[in-house]
């Protein structure tokens, strides 16, 4: 217990003093996870939408792939991405192995099926007539799908939380394709998870616990923000008030 408390104190100290090593690793972790989640959404939401709303040959097979993809073990994904990106691999010429790009790729592969699968399930649960109504009010095909997506926004945010949560906490793939590297004395492909493993291996328990606590803290904070948006409380109220104040100010200035 004392160990954990010491780690907590150490974590606070590192944060408050903006310890460069820890800060860089934390920001790097956020960076790759944000990018991977973004691309996961960019590809996953349309894919989930198409699978939910259209019938075509091979659809069942694709749906199975997506559903299976939701349960992909991160380490296996890391292995396959490694095999593709290594020097002798088919994509070796890209030289992406042991760079942040490799971690982002692996994380996109992990996040996208998750986001696609949940989006698909959410849309299939919605009344399909809503799309018809939207179109009869003048929306185009894409517009009606966007309207339907807005109706399921609670589930969509859950999908994003699931995708993001999955990748910020994984360590196997990041380790395998990123290498947990320092470059020129700076953290280069070191994420909070791989760094924690590293510090444990080196016997720096306090630092490891501190990193772990920071990881938990960041994850919790981000999920809290996303949940607020989803449940429409914390953020939307002040945002709405700010918006109306701003527009009133503009009207008066005009």
């Amino acid at each position: 217990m004392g160990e954990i408390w010491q780690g907590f104190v150490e974590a606070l100290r590192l944060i408050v003093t903006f310890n460069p090593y820890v800060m860089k690793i934390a920001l790097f972790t956020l960076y790759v996870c944000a990018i991977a989640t973004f691309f996961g959404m960019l590809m996953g939401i349309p894919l989930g939408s198409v699978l939910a709303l259209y019938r075509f040959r091979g659809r069942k097979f694709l749906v199975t792939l997506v559903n299976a993809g939701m349960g992909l073990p991160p380490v296996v994904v890391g292995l396959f991405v490694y095999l593709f990106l290594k020097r002798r691999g088919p994509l070796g010429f890209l030289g992406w192995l042991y760079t942040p790009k490799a971690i982002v790729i692996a994380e996109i592969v992990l996040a996208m099926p998750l986001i696609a699968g949940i989006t698909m399930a959410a849309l299939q649960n919605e009344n399909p007539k809503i799309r018809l109504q939207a179109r009869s009010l003048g929306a185009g095909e894409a517009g009606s799908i966007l309207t339907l997506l807005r109706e399921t926004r609670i589930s969509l945010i859950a999908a994003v939380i699931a995708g993001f949560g999955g990748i910020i906490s994984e360590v196997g793939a990041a380790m395998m394709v990123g290498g947990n590297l320092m470059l020129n004395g700076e953290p280069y492909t070191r994420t909070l998870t791989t760094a924690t493993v590293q510090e444990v291996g080196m016997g720096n328990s306090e630092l490891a616990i501190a990193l772990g606590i920071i990881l938990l803290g960041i994850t919790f904070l981000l999920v809290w923000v996303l949940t607020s948006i989803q449940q429409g409380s914390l953020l939307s109220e002040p945002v709405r008030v700010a918006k109306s104040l701003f527009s009133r100010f503009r009207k008066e200035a005009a």
Partner: protein
Amino acid sequence: MDFLISVEGLRQEYDGRQVLNIEKLELIEGEILAVVGPNGSGKSTLLRLINLLEKPTHGDIVYWSGKRLSEIDRNERRELARQMAMIFQEPLLFKRSVRANVTYGLKVRKTGKDEREKMVEDILAKLNLTELADRNALTLSGGEAQKVTLGRAMVLQPRLLLMDEPLASLDVPSRKDLRGYISDLVREMGVTAIYVSHDYHEVLEIADRLAVLIGGNLLQVGKPSEVFGRPASEEVASFFGAENLLEGEVVKCREGMARLRVKDVELEALCELPIGSRVKALIHPEEVALLSDPGDAGSARNRLRARVKEVHVIGALAKVTLDCGFPLVAYITRASREEMRIDAGLEVTAVIKATAIHVMPYVGRPEASG
């Protein structure tokens, strides 16, 4: 008379099954046309085709701009679609405020913010929804929700409003309420409307014309009184729940007046069909008068001796089932019934004017008129 849209040879098939087949139907600008028929008769399909939500297997629709469904490109299609709006039996409201729901179509059309707000507030006021404007649309009652649906469509000032059984899921008071709003708003804004329903009673009040669609075929179009009072075929008559539909044969015909033999009884009716034709005769129960004394029959041609089999009081009316050689149903007022002391077993005289017997040919489906 300006036609807003004109349907030509329109046919729709799903998986080889034909669900709609309309040779010709014209919509008069400014009218409310009710399309009635039993469930599954193709009414909703017709609306979806007109609203450009589906493509027909055959046929064409000519719109007000002269554009034909078969000839328009994507942009024209979108332009056209934006001049129409449709509301359904389910409110299908979005998970937003009432105001946001009503604003939806205007946002899609990229209407300017100030103009948008004014139009929305206007419609909300007309429908007495201003107080509910900020409520989440999903918390409304059935009647309120359908009002919002109506507002959401009407705020777009469509040239053509399509309504697919909008009142079907509401309770009776809400139906009356909403029917009034629909009628007032549509007339006030000069919108042409097509109103689809399987319940013809609710449209009799507001429809200018009635179109009867059964099994995908347009059987009759005309004023409600025409269609209802003089159905073009037995099918149409059955749909309106004709109580007295008799089978018979023309035995005499002279100067437009014919004698029909129904079972063993002869009736005189207005009819131009040749002798020997098999016919169906429709007699509205309200037009059958009952007399205790045959002498009071007046000028009516048909006086039949009848025995009362059953009396059923419904509100202010009494439904009297008689046997006059064939089964006959008459509606009389409760007061008359009490006065004449009509009960089962009593012998009375049933009096029917020749003009009150509507004769239809028995064989096949006649051409759709209108």
